């Protein structure tokens, strides 16, 4: 039972990944006929040099051949070469990975505080706490994250000077170990707070309605009748049942936060996936975009898979079906 459940979910994820690969390939190939021309325009390339480059970027042959080549390459873990500076896309992405993990991870953690708030608000539906926190979360939900970034940057970095205006660490910092971490933390705090503000509302709203959904359930009445404290009824009976929507939101949000970081990272010059995307789009640096797109999609697929499997743990009924 359990094994087939996992297998089924895995198969679904793999099929989606396959779709993304195909989609990714064609989307980008349709865009541009021959990027070599635009890349080396006017640079006195000989025909043979050009042919060489075309071959190197796998831009020769039929679309099908290109696709096969592309997939082969992917399987080898090779995402091709960036148009810019001829660097392997894998390197470009690898460099951007850690800053994004740091930023998105921390901001997600912060935003997840909204879950707790949402549960409490839903539990005391209609109370002052509920109305205040719900209003606040709708407010933050309504703000474009880059705008929050602009405003906070204006106040806390430009005016008050509490935070550096951007970057991952102090320029030329040679710090290592703890002081390096401290430095990065200091740089990360403001963009992380921006992202957290942008997403906390959604967590809170979803958690709240999941909680309200469970409020109707008979087992809460039973728990109370057993002589349980109200708080414990919420924590032990209501919350475990209100987890599913929150888990799936977290999975979906994962993609959103990563992409929402595009604007925020560029405002804060945070050298992560978001900024890499922004720069690649400006190019446009197709191999890098393709790689990023694949990476983000894969990350979201994996996040969804994890959420699906978590469902199985959180709600035993899911596995049975």
């Amino acid at each position, binding site marked *: 039972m359990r094994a087939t459940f996992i297998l089924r979910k895995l198969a679904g994820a793999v099929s989606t990944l396959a779709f993304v690969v195909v989609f990714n390939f064609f989307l980008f190939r349709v865009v541009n006929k021959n990027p070599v*021309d*635009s890349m080396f*325009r*006017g*640079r*006195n*390339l*000989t*025909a043979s*040099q*050009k042919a060489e480059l075309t071959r190197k970027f796998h831009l020769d042959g039929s679309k099908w051949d290109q696709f096969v080549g592309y997939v082969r390459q992917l399987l080898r873990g090779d995402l091709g070469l960036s148009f*810019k*500076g*001829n*660097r392997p896309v894998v390197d*470009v992405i690898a*460099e*951007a990975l850690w800053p994004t993990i740091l930023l998105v991870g921390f901001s997600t*953690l*912060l935003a997840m*505080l909204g879950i*707790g708030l949402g549960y409490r608000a839903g539990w005391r539906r209609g109370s002052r706490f509920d109305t205040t926190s719900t209003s606040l979360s709708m407010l933050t939900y309504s703000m474009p994250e880059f705008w929050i970034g602009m405003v906070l*940057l204006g106040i*806390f*970095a*430009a005016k*008050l*000077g*509490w*935070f*550096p*205006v*951007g*970057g*991952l660490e*102090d*320029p*030329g910092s*040679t710090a290592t170990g703890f002081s390096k971490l*401290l430095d990065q*933390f*200091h740089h990360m*705090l403001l963009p992380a707070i921006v992202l957290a503000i942008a997403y906390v509302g959604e967590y809170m709203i979803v958690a709240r309605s999941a909680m309200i959904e469970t409020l109707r359930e008979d087992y809460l009445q039973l728990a109370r009748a057993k002589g349980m404290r109200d708080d414990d009824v919420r*924590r*032990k009976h209501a919350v*475990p049942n209100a987890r599913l929507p929150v888990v799936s939101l977290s999975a979906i949000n994962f993609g959103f936060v990563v992409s929402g970081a595009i604007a925020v990272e*560029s*405002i*804060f*010059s945070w*050298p992560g996936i978001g*900024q*890499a995307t*922004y*720069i690649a789009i*400006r*190019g*446009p640096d197709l191999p890098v975009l393709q790689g990023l797109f694949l990476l983000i999609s894969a990350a979201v697929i994996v996040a969804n898979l994890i959420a699906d499997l978590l469902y199985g743990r959180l709600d035993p009924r899911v596995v049975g079906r």
Partner: protein
Amino acid sequence: SGSSGGGTVTLTVGVTQDVDSPNVTVGYTVAAYELWNLQYATLTDKAADDFATIPGLASTWDASDDGLTYTYHLREGLKWSDGQPLTAEDVAWTVNTSRDQEWYNHSSVTANLDAVALDDVTVQITSAVPDPKLPTMDVYILPKHIWEGPAADDVTAFDALDGVGSGPFTLKEWKPGQEWTMVANPNYWQGQPKIDQVVFRVYTEGGAMVTALEKGELDAANDIPAELFADLGTQPNIVTVAGAQGGFTELAMNGMAGGIGDGHPALLDLNVRHAVAMAIDRQQLFDRVALGIGLPLTVLGVSPDQEWLPEIPDAEKLGYDPEAAKALLEDNGYKDTDGDGIREMPGGGEPLVFRYAERSEGTQGAAIRELITGWLKEVGIGTEVSVYDDTQLGDIIYAGTYDLFVWGWTPFVDPDPMLSYFTCDQVTYDADEAGYNDANWCSPEYDALYVQQNQELDHAKRVELVHEMIRMFNTQSTYVVLYHDADTQAYRTDRFTGWLQQPKGTGPVIFSNSSPTYFNLTPIESSGSDDGGLGTGALIAIIAGAVVLVGLIVFFAMRSRSSREDRE
């Protein structure tokens, strides 16, 4: 920032553009040129003040009588930053290989050259044709022992992160999208620089960069947004520089040389081009869009050296005169026959609606477009705007499928390259042989003049020829040069002294032609007081953040404890 934390003196420079590749055969961004300027010394140098050719790696050189051969004498004991000797062999290898492999950063200089190392310190360079650009050898000399290895067959694949060079600073680390760090080269032929390292920090947002400069996180910055430029100059300890390098912004009209592309037929009429030029208030563009930073010049910029620019008689200036523009159009049959405010071709028919390609990169495209399209409308010319990034815009230009576009150029020191772009050779007739002639205008007379100046060894005569070419180009109005841009830069005066403008008085301090500033900088002794330490604000912020973090951990820990309680 410019501190001596841990004993290292660091210069920090803010930029808005990253290096695309440290490999001289691949990179093309301005940032990459700055990197190479610092990392690779050249045979001859350019004087900081006036670009005069001065000794570089070569201390002296002799010319042959026919002016085709030069013999350069290298300094004794030159070394690469890794300690290997730098010899004539390196020079010969660089010149010959770059010519054979057509490295595009070298080939404009080395295309006709042949180099022979006569001994370790003597190299003889022969040109196939008379070349006024010699004896200047504006070529980055590469370390043969690094570059001829496995990289020789596939030189474009080389990551060039070796950091071996002969310039004052060499690349230590490149974090793409973030920063690149260059450290002092102890073997630099002029001696060890007085600062230990230069960090270039990349900002995606100009406003953020300016803030960082003001806060002292940076010592200098390039590409200051024009809106912030004036105010920045009034800040204590900050000096702003609007460095002129001859770069300009132009409105180009499709000349359709040889029937190329599908431009609007009206653009073939010189009267229409003149009317367009007169419809545009270039002074206003300079004042309102460039905010008066730069020069209100309307001639083709071919060099940072103003010597090359001719005086244009008022009659040829085609200054702002909408009435004259209207009259010119009216007189030549471009009348609004259907009363929609837009003129039609003589005898009715196709309206004068031009496709206007706006460049999305850079910050001024939108403002220029708004003004120009507005003014054109005033004289009865319509526009259809599309926005393209540089790649797409390039595609459109090379296909000739545009009517108008606005873009810009920055010339080299020698006017030759810029002038070459408007020869018939450079028109892109075949996408595989793309040329630089983006307005598709050319003429045999111009081409003849070009060949003349290219081989004219008499400087004064050559200046004459160049002036004539520029005026000829100007009267054609295929380019309406809007204004000459400036490199908006700023630096702090409280940490380093020795900032050099190249050329003196008008040029930029960094990202100049050969970037002499860096070697010239000296740290100010008293600086570095707040050496590497964090400000109080920063401390408050970190503490606040830490409290939040601890709070989070406690929160989640409590949650997990409470849920552990009821696990089996």
